[in-house]
């Protein structure tokens, strides 16, 4: 509870404090709204041939027939793909699915990372040494080739959610090392010693004294996890691995490329997906910029000083 409440206060403070965070937050809200629109899409997620093929943005297209058999016309906002899908609505699904993939990856990856990082950090000793060696062995494995390998081993069994899980499992070794370092430094800080000497329960020390420091750090780390997961999703899709019939930013790019969109000047198929990826990442980047700034002890002191007045 304390953690969640802390999260909200942190976000509120951040909004007040950092322009970058504010902009990032707005951009991301827009992207999330776009993803949310997918639930209102007139087309089904994996349907093809709902619209005429390869029409540029803002053209009038027939989108079906009404009860009397008359054609219904409508303007397509971002054009249609070579498979007969409306780019705008595809994009909403794509963002949603990519968020699901990246979200799952981050959730799983960071959960493992936090637990292991805290365990190794607090427990230390032989346990720490063994676990750290295992983590180090995993870190040296080149991740992209491994991902491609595993994706081609899992083949059709790799669902959208499965991809998220796989990315999560691949992305905890590095962060867990960072958490461990963070915990180690917290453990050595004065207030920890003070708290322990004053007879505070160790669990309480962790929850009350350390979590407030770890949560913002986690937030910044979540951002980088998101970026990595989106990048990997896009890369795997480019190579034709994963569920290509399910729209995601990666699969939109794959199909655009498959139908030679750049060669035949159908850029409207590619550009929205690229922009979506860019906006998402820039949004997250600005968030993390705000958070980093916010975490900086000196600015934090100034801020506290200001708010006390």
């Amino acid at each position: 509870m304390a953690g969640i409440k802390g999260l909200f206060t942190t976000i509120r403070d951040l909004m007040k404090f950092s322009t970058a965070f504010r902009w990032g937050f707005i951009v991301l809200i827009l992207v999330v709204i776009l993803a949310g629109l997918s639930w209102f899409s007139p087309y089904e997620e994996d349907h093809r041939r709902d619209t005429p093929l390869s029409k540029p943005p803002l053209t009038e297209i027939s989108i079906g027939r009404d009860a009397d058999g008359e054609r219904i016309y409508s303007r397509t906002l971002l054009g249609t793909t070579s498979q007969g899908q409306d780019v705008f609505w595809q994009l909403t699904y794509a963002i949603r699915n990519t968020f699901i993939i990246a979200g799952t990856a981050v959730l799983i990856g960071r959960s493992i990372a936090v637990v292991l990082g805290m365990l190794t950090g607090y427990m230390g000793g032989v346990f720490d040494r063994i676990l750290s060696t295992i983590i180090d062995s995993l870190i040296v494995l080149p991740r992209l080739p491994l991902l491609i390998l595993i994706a081609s081993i899992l083949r059709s069994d790799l669902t959208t959610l499965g991809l998220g899980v796989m990315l999560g499992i691949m992305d905890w070794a590095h962060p867990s090392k960072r958490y461990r370092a963070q915990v180690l430094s917290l453990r050595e800080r004065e207030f920890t010693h003070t708290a322990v000497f004053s007879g505070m329960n160790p669990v309480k020390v962790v929850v009350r004294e350390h979590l407030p420091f770890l949560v913002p750090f986690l937030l910044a780390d979540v951002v980088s996890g998101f970026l990595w997961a989106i990048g990997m999703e896009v890369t795997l899709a480019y190579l034709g691995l994963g569920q290509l019939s399910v729209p995601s930013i990666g699969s939109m790019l794959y199909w655009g490329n498959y139908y030679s969109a750049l060669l035949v000047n159908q850029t409207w198929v590619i550009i929205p997906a690229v922009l979506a990826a860019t906006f998402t990442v820039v949004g997250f980047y600005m968030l993390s910029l705000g958070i980093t700034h916010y975490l900086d002890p000196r600015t934090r002191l100034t801020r506290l000083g200001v708010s006390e007045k």
Partner: protein
Amino acid sequence: MTLLQQFILPRLLQWFIVLIVGITLIFLIPRMSPVNPVQDALGRILQNQALAPEDVVQMRDQLTANYGLDGSLFDQYIRFWTNLLDGDLGPSYGAYPTRVNDMIGRALPYTVALLTFTTALGWIIGIIVGTLAAYYPGRVTNFVSGVLVVIYPVPYFIIAFIFLMALTYYIPYFPLIGVFRGEPGFNSEFITSYLHSTFLPAVTLLVSGLSFRFIMARALGTAELSSDHVQYATMAGLPDRRLMYSYVARNTMLPQITDLGLSMGTIFSGALITEAVFSYPGLGTLLLQGIYQADYNVVMGITILSIIAIATASLIVDLCYPLLDPRVRYR
């Protein structure tokens, strides 16, 4: 003595364990693939011709033996280590009877040249521009950072494709594939054609690498500028330039050097996507092909190289850290 025992030896031991565990994993994972390299090769042979079934079976046995895939998993594992310690990575399946050593040897210089150059150049430019941007915030630097921050998240292959379309199609200036003329070596024919062919992949990698480095350098620089000792130095009236060299640049170099060391370690798995887009004959294209053809030996060869490189790079960084940062002592 204590230095060796307490600091260097444990790290060496860990390096060693990490290698064994990592290499064992990379031995096992491809073998879980349902793509059977023998069947895959057989599929290619039988693709366009019909063969008597008896001959298919005989051919399969022959290929299995040629590939060294006969015997139990344990036998293969033992054989794998015996060969590896001899420095032999075995034959490639897709390019049988070529040895994986030869294939890697052929591709390695291309990848290493490309990636060392782009990583180093991106590192240098990124740090210089990033530090400057942190030091002189203003309209120009904001614009530059804006551009680089936007480029950073654009997927690699999109950047690659834009360059490809622009400079091979609309302006047909650069070649479509790596065209290397003359004997590889230090002669003008080879170097000219090399530069000509490598320009596009290099620029792609540079742009992406640079934007990441820039963002990191600027963040570190900004943090350093607001640190106490720089604030004191400014108040003490130290000249700007001096301040930048002696404090900001120097103190932000440490994490950058660490990071450079680690990035150099990752060079050996190649620039997969960029190489694929530009048909560049490096380790990345080799690896990708190996994965698709279930060419375990190629996949293992390249990843082992990569594992050794990353582990060694981080070992070196670890060992050198105390030399660079006086605050950290060997212990």
